[in-house]
């Protein structure tokens, strides 16, 4: 099923235009929504997740008009917000049973089986009797995945789920997400390019409430083939380089020199060497092009 967003706009009371005439099509598979902090990712995801109403525009998921028939979407929606809390003094098992009830699983036997399964998937079965409020960050995120699975969702929205997870937890989390996402649409927002590279079948870059670009990660990289150049420079040369070339990123080497990457259709200078394009380059180019031009 396809998620089609058309001309979506949302302006907050304080004047911030969080979503600016945004249109987007998302098909089955993992969709990465990449953007810096404050780009409007969460606003967009909350709007799709029926938590916010836009000022104008439309969202369709298959036949479901999301803005008109919120209930229909909620039946097939799994949502994991950027941060969430839980009722204190309740165990994972009890909370999941509660969510399963909310999601319409009427039979007790069904609920028990379902809860057991999602606990096992997320590797929380051993701690099912413990209060979720006392979980560590990674466990809590896994609990978030567990509750999201309960209605066997067709559309899954996860908002910056890997922020703050240790590498092992992050891996585990992404694997589960990937597993879940094979048969449905998963929208996955992040500001970590790595996440998208590893998982996503499609991606978009969002900033200032607008989609800057949309492509598959491979396409995006391919489009830059032969346009990314790199060079090792001294620290002092950096400002000069930035003035002369379109510098995308610069990383320190161990000897206090810098590795800079430059975007250019042709070889910028003889001492540059061609580099394999990476997703980071795509991201930085997109953001750079969107920067306000100083007059």
């Amino acid at each position: 099923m396809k998620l089609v967003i058309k001309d979506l706009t949302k302006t907050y009371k304080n004047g911030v235009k969080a979503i600016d005439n945004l249109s987007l099509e998302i098909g089955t598979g993992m969709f990465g929504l990449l953007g810096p902090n404050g780009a409007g990712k969460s606003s967009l995801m909350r709007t799709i997740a029926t938590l916010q109403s836009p000022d104008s525009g439309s969202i369709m998921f298959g036949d479901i008009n999301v803005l008109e028939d919120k209930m229909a979407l909620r039946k097939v929606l799994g949502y994991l917000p950027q941060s969430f809390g839980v009722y204190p003094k309740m165990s994972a098992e009890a909370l999941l049973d509660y969510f399963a009830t909310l999601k319409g699983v009427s039979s007790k036997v069904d609920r028990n089986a379902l809860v057991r399964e999602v606990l096992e998937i997320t590797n929380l079965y051993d701690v099912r009797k413990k209060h979720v409020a006392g979980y560590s960050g990674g466990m809590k995120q896994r609990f978030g995945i567990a509750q999201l699975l309960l209605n066997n969702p067709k559309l899954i929205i996860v908002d910056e789920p890997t922020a703050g997870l240790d590498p092992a937890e992050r891996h585990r989390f992404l694997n589960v997400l990937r597993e879940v996402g094979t048969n449905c649409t998963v929208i996955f927002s992040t500001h970590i390019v790595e996440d998208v590279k590893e998982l996503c079948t499609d991606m978009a870059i969002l900033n200032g409430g607008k989609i800057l670009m949309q492509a598959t990660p491979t396409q995006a990289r391919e489009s830059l083939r032969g346009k990314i150049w790199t060079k090792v420079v001294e620290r002092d040369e950096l400002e000069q380089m930035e003035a002369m070339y379109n510098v995308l990123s610069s990383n320190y080497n161990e000897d206090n020199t810098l590795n800079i990457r430059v975007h250019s259709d042709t070889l910028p200078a003889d001492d540059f060497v061609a580099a394999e394009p990476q997703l980071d380059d795509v991201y930085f180019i997109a953001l750079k092009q969107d920067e306000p031009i100083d007059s």
Partner: protein
Amino acid sequence: MFFTIFTHELRYWLKKPATYIYAAIFFVLAFFMASASAGIFDSVTVTTGSSRIVNSPIGIFNLYNALTIFIFFLFPSIIGISIYRDYKSEMHTILYSYPFSKANYLFAKFFSAIVVVTGIVFVIGIGMFIGFRFPGTNSELVAPFDLQSYLYTYLVYILPNVLLFGAIVFAVVTFTRNIAAGFITIVLLIFIQGLMEGLLSDSDNRALAAMLDPYGASAADYYVRYWTVAEQNEWHLPFKGLIIYNRLLWLGIASLIFGLVYKFFSFSQNAVSFSFRKDKGERSVKRNFGGITKINLPKVSFDYSFLQNLKTMWKLSNMEFLYIVKSWPFISILIVGLIIVLISLSEIGNLFGTPTLPVTWKMLNGGSAFVIAINICTFLYAGLLVHRGNITRMEDLIDVTPIPNWTLFLSKFIALLKMQLVMLAIIMASGMLFQIYNGYYNFEIGHYVYELFVLSFISYAIWAFLSMFVQTLMRNPYLGLFVLIVLAIGMPLLSLAGVEQAIFKYNQGPGYAYSDMNGYGDSFGLYMIYKLYWLFCGLVLLVFTALFWVRGLPDSFKERIQIAKRRLTLKMTILLSVFVIGFLALGFRIYYQNNILNTRISSKESELRTVEWEKTYKKYENAAQPRIVAVKANVNIFPKQLNFDASGEYVMINKTDVAIDSIFLNHNSYPSTFEFDKPNTLVSEDTIYNFDIYELKQPMLPGDSLTLSFTVKNKPNSLLEKNSPVRHNGTFINNFQIFPNLGYNGGELQDNKIREKYDLPPNELKPMPTDSTALGNTYIGKDSDWVDFEATVSTSEDQIAIAPGYLQKEWTENGRRYFHYKMDSKILNFYGFNSAEYEVKKDTWKDVNLEIYYHKGHEYNLDRMMAGMKASLEYNTKNFSPYQHKQLRIIEFPRTGGSFAQSFPNTIPFSEGVGFIADVDETEEGGVDYPFAITVHEVAHQWWAHQVIGADVLGATMLSESLSEYVSLKVLEHQQGKSQMRKFLKEALDDYLTQRTFESKREKPLMYNDGQGYIRYQKGSLVFYAISDYIGEEKLNNALKAYVEKVKFQEAPYTTSVEMVDYIKEVTPDSLQYVIKDMFETITLYENRVADVTSTELENGKYQVDIHFQVSKYRNDEKGKRFFSDNGKDSLQYQSETMKKPEYSVPLADYIDIGIFGEEEVNGVKKETELYLKKQKITQIDNHISIIVDEKPVEVGVDPYNKLIDTNSNDNRKKL
């Protein structure tokens, strides 16, 4: 650093709209209360008229303190939040690593919040100040602005309290990091205040309560509780003794709490938590888990049907309910509420130290102390449930599930109702436990269940609707709670502004009352109709709750309104319309009944009518009218239908020496017919005041007679209105309620300031007893002297009907029982009719038949009452005159009709609440045997009212009530000894001194009293007891006997208090004549106290006791102003070195009891023995006396038995 944080905090508060909302609410409250008390609404409601200055020092003290109590509810959300904010925003994780000291941090946080709170308190002061003086208030009630009154209240009470409660809340929130905890603390503290007030009712506990009351109000009350009106208007509140100690104690506790906060506070990341399970520290290691899991969710079925949602709603409600009952705010309110209930259960219904049996209705009444707990829990938990998702930040997860809104909010609403049911069940459980504890096993489970789970539950549920709505609108549960508390308290106060009809005030309406005899009577129907009406309103609110229910993250209130509009689908519109129509239809029906079908008379209109009545008809006040000499009545009571119809015949004689050409018939609004046996014309008929004038064709010449035949019945009853005084079981009607009378008979406005407003001459009170032209009427009625009486009363077959007189005949006809009564001697024109299913207990005293008609099950005290009848007959007969009847009956009536007994000729209706269910403790420690005492009093009325009846002038009630009370005291003393007297007198003294402070007009000396209860009962009993002590009981009774002999059954002119006092004066020695003056003719109060006492054992084994004591007395004028001399010149003066001001006294030549008491042990119990008691002549204020006694003295006293009226009876005795 302190100032950086401090100013930052202040700026935060100044930017917050909530600060201004709070300030505005308090300003409006203060303004409303102050201006209403100063009479700003006089044009729409009753005129506020009183001799009380509303902004007197004590007036400001009371209002300012009362309003400040509301502020405490804001403490959690101002003082608590100030520190909680940093936790909630997780700012503390950063802040606590900054380089400032915890002193800076804590003090800045605390004092910035205190500044905000005191700012709001300041606004209250401004609101009061403006309110008192706002144009439209009555300037006569308002004294000039007095800064000292405001400052005193502010500095001595409010500021220390703000610091104390602020420190407590700050401490609680700091350590628990939980606002609810701070809130509960406030609720508990307010309960403690309630407890202190309970303690205050017993005068022995007052000093303790004064120390312990955290508000300090009890300490102030300790000194001002006996202040008269004049003193209240003028005096500034003291700052001394217990007040200082109390303030120091609590300020100390506040500092201690703050010190503890300082000591134990650390910039740590985790809250202090309490747990009974100590967890072992365990090293936590993550398991290594890589690997890919195959996801294979079991196939389950999803059910989104309506039915399933209903089931889910129930399931969720259980979950929410568990959350409430497991949360400790609930548990702590419950526990403290229970303690209060148990305390009030043991206090309620106590009379003279004797408790009432723990009958079920009493248990339920005691449970009403729980009302506050249930309401506060409802208000609070509505907020905590509505915002539960938001508070825990789980709302996003919930809001995206396919559960309809209604399932969510109804589940919370149902959880709230379940909580209420649990709390109601607790009232039942505690009531039954209390009954078991007291060995009372007559459990009326049905009664408990019906009242708690049907009657009161509906009312609580209606509050739950409003709570859900308000809490849904508000984004902050504590602001919502505050609004709800203001609404709940403010709703009844709207009457002050002229909103009198219950249909305009949420959840208001007639109540219900239970009596063992009559059940809930007819109160049930009307109660339910009003509750149904409010239930519809609640449902309307529920629909609005649905419309405004927050799902997701609306950006602004504007957006919420848009969402609400979108949610108003056809289905919702229909639902809403049905509820609105139901609400309006019922409302209109009630309004129609009260305002169109019946002319509803607002308090204002009623005031205006009283004015017009006086202006139109007072001119006939002294017109000559015939006197009723015989009454024949036929009264038919229909207990099932709650109807009555009656007919009667008055025989009247012109006893004047002029011809009478017009009859002024003053009747009631029941449908009636009147017919005279002489030709006449109705020349004036007044359907508003029901005052008709008949002109006789032939004037009645002196000695002529005239007969009036009349019929009267009630209008048909309807569900919304009951038009008769008949009850299903226990009807009690007197003749003034249903029968007509002759002539203008008063009922005028009393307050002179209000009278002036309507151009009425000042109220003269009744004439003085010395006015010989005013003695033509008794104070019972103006249209008769003594009458012949005969009555036939009928009732349903299962009931007995009673009227004064002897039963001549009893028969049954057409399924109804008839009783014909006839009196053999003349009686006052004052009689009642009773009907109920009675059991009868019979006995005789000499040749007098004694009967008690009682409700089955109320046998507990029949023997005491019977004994009381005999003892009273014996005492009165022996000391005064023979009993005029051959029969005496006590007749029980429901307590819903009042808690009193009333003496009609040979018939005494006696409320079930004042004796039938007393739990008398006959041991020495027990209280007064009041079933016995009240019976003696009422029987004494057969002499003191029904033989000796005073003229309708000032002081008349001394002849009836004070004397009956005197007889009751004396009989009690002879039967049960002097120790019972002390309990009785002490309570009488406290009641007299307390009640006179509420006097709104004027207090007159006993023999000129204007009928106030506290003078004729309490002061009367004290005075007569003291007189009998001074001149001797026998001497006094002989004087009274001679007096009775002269005046009993006399015709006009009637006797007065002056005549009786003259008889007493005659037997009083010259040296004691001053007692008559002090006690009867003036208002005189003593201030007696023992200053110092020492005792030395003499060589002969005796003891010499040296007592240093002071005696002084002063007189009050009718407003309570003090005078120390009768002629303006002579007064005594005394000043010791340590006294700042001299003490004055009216010149003394008084005989005062000096007593010395020892102690002996009888069966292991220590008992007081009297070693010495003698009256000493006292002529100066300061006195020293040496007395030698045989045994070891333990305690001494000046007027140790509190026989004199003394404003501080606690310092009369001193232990050695």
